[in-house]
């Protein structure tokens, strides 16, 4: 049975490495013990992996870091900025189109930071897409990256990231696209892709993208479509289900992304209708318009009157769930992240930078999260 298997204690879960020592001590012959002591000595001379590098996502259409945002990034010693360059999706006529190409209005604050261009691609782009259109898409994407990148100085980027929640039906096309992109980008450019938790847990089923690096998104753990979900952004118990039982190592070196956003999910007729980003908390104190539901709740509301919120016209009876991630939950996420086999030079990227975040999470707290994941 398992005749080709070889002994390797690397597969022990991180919390159980002490057991490996016990195992070897108990069973090793003197010659093995000598080898083990040699390894131990070698290990003690090896440097610890470097500290986790903080990074931040910029996910808006216009880039102009404010003074407070720049100061925030400086306090965080943030050297990496993941900047969304464009979205790619299908329009009503199912034509693939680029959206929201980034405009750099002010490059102040970018000096000394490495910009990682990001491209968000809707999953349906790769649905039933012919191979020749993938060539076209790769060519157009490269063209867009070149055009948007021209606003930066320098306009050479060491890494480019692709964000797509691929599924079993779109995997082949997405992976093929990535290969084509690699051929269209400068040779030294490193490709990375976002990895959802289910993709992390089931790599055999969902596949591993042909890139150099993965950014594991430790959020979106819940069902956004379920009005009764507690918090779809992050629930430690839900996240634990994905991390627990996953293979000890993922086939790609991994960075990690944690959520720092807030949104109000609007459910109409029992299903998700709209997402309103970053709603002001005081909005829901207007008891003439919103009623906590059930009473006493501070995150769930029923619209009592028709009216606009965040550009959306709400009707009486619309159900709203306000979701964010507090510092306790972020700490729990960081503790959980210790179980993930992150890359030696891993980055911890916070999604995403905006004026509200700067006030909600102090820079020292984010530094603390980096240290929690990998103590210095």
């Amino acid at each position, binding site marked *: 049975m*398992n*005749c080709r298997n070889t002994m390797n204690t690397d*597969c022990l879960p991180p919390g159980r490495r002490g057991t490996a020592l016990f195992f070897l001590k108990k069973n090793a012959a003197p010659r093995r013990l000598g080898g083990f002591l040699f390894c131990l000595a070698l290990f003690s001379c090896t440097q610890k992996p470097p500290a986790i590098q903080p990074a931040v996502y910029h996910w808006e259409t216009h880039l102009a870091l404010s003074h407070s945002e720049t100061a925030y990034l400086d306090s965080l010693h943030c050297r990496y900025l993941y900047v969304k360059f464009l979205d790619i999706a299908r329009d009503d006529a199912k034509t693939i189109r680029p959206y929201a190409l980034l405009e750099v209005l002010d490059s102040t604050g970018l000096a000394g930071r490495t910009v990682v261009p990001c491209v968000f691609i809707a999953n349906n782009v790769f649905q039933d897409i012919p191979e020749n259109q993938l060539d076209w898409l790769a060519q157009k994407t490269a063209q867009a990256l070149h055009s948007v990148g021209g606003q930066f100085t320098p306009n050479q980027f060491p890494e480019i990231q692709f964000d797509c929640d691929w599924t079993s039906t779109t995997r082949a096309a997405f992976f093929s696209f990535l290969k084509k992109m690699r051929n269209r980008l400068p040779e030294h450019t490193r490709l990375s892709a976002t990895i959802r938790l289910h993709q992390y847990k*089931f790599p055999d*089923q969902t596949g591993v993208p042909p890139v150099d690096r993965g950014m594991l998104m430790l959020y979106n753990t819940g069902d956004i479509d379920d009005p009764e979900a507690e918090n779809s952004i992050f629930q430690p118990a839900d996240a634990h289900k994905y991390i*627990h039982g996953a293979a000890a190592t993922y086939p790609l070196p991994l960075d990690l992304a944690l959520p720092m956003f807030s949104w109000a999910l609007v459910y109409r007729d029992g299903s998700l209708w709209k997402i309103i980003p970053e709603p002001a908390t005081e909005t829901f104190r207007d008891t003439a318009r919103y009623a906590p539901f059930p009473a006493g709740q501070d995150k769930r509301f029923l619209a009592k009157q028709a009216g606009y919120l965040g550009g959306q016209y709400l009707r009486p*009876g619309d159900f709203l769930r306000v979701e964010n991630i507090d510092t306790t939950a972020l700490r729990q996420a960081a503790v959980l992240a210790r179980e993930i086999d992150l890359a030696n030079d891993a980055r911890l990227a916070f999604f995403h930078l905006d004026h509200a975040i700067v006030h909600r999470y102090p820079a020292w707290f984010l530094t603390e999260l980096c240290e929690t994941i990998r103590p210095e």
Partner: protein
Amino acid sequence: MSLTKHRGLNRPRLLCTTCAIVLFCFFIPAHRPMPAEKPTGACDPFGRTFSGYSFLVPDIINKNAAYAPFFVKWDDYYQKNYFETDLQRDDNVQEWIGRFCGLPTAVDVDYVVYRSSINELISLREAALQKGGESLLPFGLTGNTFAEVLALNGCTEAIDYLMFAKRCEPHVTAYDGWELPERDADFMQALIDEGQGRFLQTESHFFRQRYAYQLVRLAHYAGKWQETVDLYNYLLPKFDRKRPSILYYWTLGHLAGALQKLGKYPEAAYRYSVIFRNCPSKRVQAFRSFKIRTNAEWEAALRLCQTDAERATLYLMRAASSRTYTVEDFEMIYRLDPGNPQLDLMLVSDVQQLERVFLRTPVTELKYGTQSRAAQRQEAAKHLLSLQRLARQVAKEKKTPNPKLWSAMTGYLELLAGDEYAAQKSFALARKQLKDGGSYEKALLHQIDIWDLLLEILNLDGSTATADQASFRIRSYDLFKRVPSFEPFLQDFLSARYAESKHPGKAILAAYDPAAITYNPRMDVLEDLLQLARSDNPILLEEAMQIDTNPARIIARLLEIKGAYLFSMGQPEAALSVLRQIPAVEDVRMPKYSPFREIFDEKIHRPITDSLLLNRREIIEKLLDYEFRAKASVAMGKPVGAWYYYLIGLGYYNMSYFGYEWEAMDYFRSGYNWMRLPQGPIFPLRNSPNGNRENIDVSRALTYFEKALAETQSPELAARAAFMAARCQQKQWFCNPECTYKPGSKQIPILPELYRGYYDRMRRYANTAFYQQIVKECSWLRAYQ
């Protein structure tokens, strides 16, 4: 190697497939109650989307209605006929043709306006300046009716405009979006300045309007928002707009865009609504750009409206941003503008949404993994009642353009509300109103035919055999075959009805592939099907005749499934009594296995060299015989008893999920479940209402190996039994939720002590020949010694 195996249906391939088809054909779609375990979940990467069943036909509305794409969806109709059509270009060409009294053809106008080169236009101008110039047209314009009209009539004003527009075009063409636009603002400003001069020198109001459009557009594309507004205000009053022109709305669109950029959202929204109402070629853009952020902006936009019809359009655009409409939306628009043709479209769109909520059964939800939530149904039910009231009122008042549609739809709303009697009456009434009508009336009659057939399905009674007969009859209708939703809906509906009527077997076969009864068999399902197979059901026989003339084979097949299931549940005696009911003539056709061989690798395929092959009945008889012999031998102090225990353990292990003869107890095995054993024994499986049950429990095998160990005095047999017991414990560890090891990995984990006892015990047998052999083959054993 494929991850999944389904050998049970392949072995006696002909027999099993035939029987399955017979069963399927006979019982026809129906289905079963809720599963023991939800087969799909948040982590299920195979989750499918289901958009619902629909029994509305596009012909009941004017599919060419320009508003239709915003309110109703019918497959890809609007993609092909609306979104992929360049309405703007077509409309513009028509306006040019109108201006020139219908003389030029559309193709020729299109060429001159959109495709001619600047040099061709220069030559055309020269021709227009000369008498008889039409004969001097450049080669590319020879024979072009539009160029001839321009040259013949000396229309230099038109040609000058076309030349100016041609120069503007590179600066105002919407870039394809894959690059940031690079506009030459200085040159664009120069064009604006030049254009203003030309505008003032132009006499024709037709061309003045077009110059105004070019200038406002240039300013807009140059990002000069205020200048856009100023130009609009300056130029628009300077030409006569009595003759309607699409150019006005195009220009208005650029004004609205600039106003929105300047933060004047109500002013922009109002103008977008005007465009949406009046200009089909810019309707999509207007709809997408329409934006109101606050209640105050909404009120301000309403105040800008000059007529109730304009107000109705604002309400309409606000309502259209939602999937569904409130009855208040309908009432407001109906009150302000009862003749508004969009009301019909809104009604149909709303009914499309209601179909999704109400035309579904528990089976539908089970099949597609989507649950309609109770709250959603409650809200939809309230809305449905309100909409029924409104539909009756509108049908009665006859103020809308198409009251017959509202009248017919009243019946369909009653059907959706579950009032089938009222629906039937309403359909009959609607039919009377539509007698001797034209083509639209025929379309509506066709729609009512469909709804009547749906009513017939909804009236099927799953508790009687008449449902089977009726469903065969319904399936034979041409109408049934022409509407794609009928077949899957009938399957789901019949299945739900059968399940309600305590026919779980028929329920499964109604909605799923016949193999579904084997994935995780249920006794009630099998009993129901056996009862049905034994009944003297003419439909069964009739259907069976098409495929097979021997219903006994169907019964044998069902007994075989039942026996295998009982066997897998650890009830060999019960299984044997079931399998013995299979008549000898069918028994010889049963698949055969060889579970008592010592195979120490982890393969799940039987080696092809077997000689001793037994069917399930024979295996059980053998097991029971071995047990008898073992007990007798032990009682009499004979050492052979331990060997019999060992053989029984071997048989059970080999027939488990982990053994090469797994299919003796199972019909379907998924290799993927290796990766999630702790979630078992029932695993999610597509197309199976109950998931897939795997025989991952090896405790019975372990018990027999332990008995063998306890009784044997032979170190060789003890080594064998201990090794197999170690394999059992290893598999039990794989099934433990605490296990993080992934089977198949090339790494060997440390087994917790609780699961390592027999590996440790193997050291006692280090001197046996078996140990010497197996330690070479098994890296796990080697690692643990």
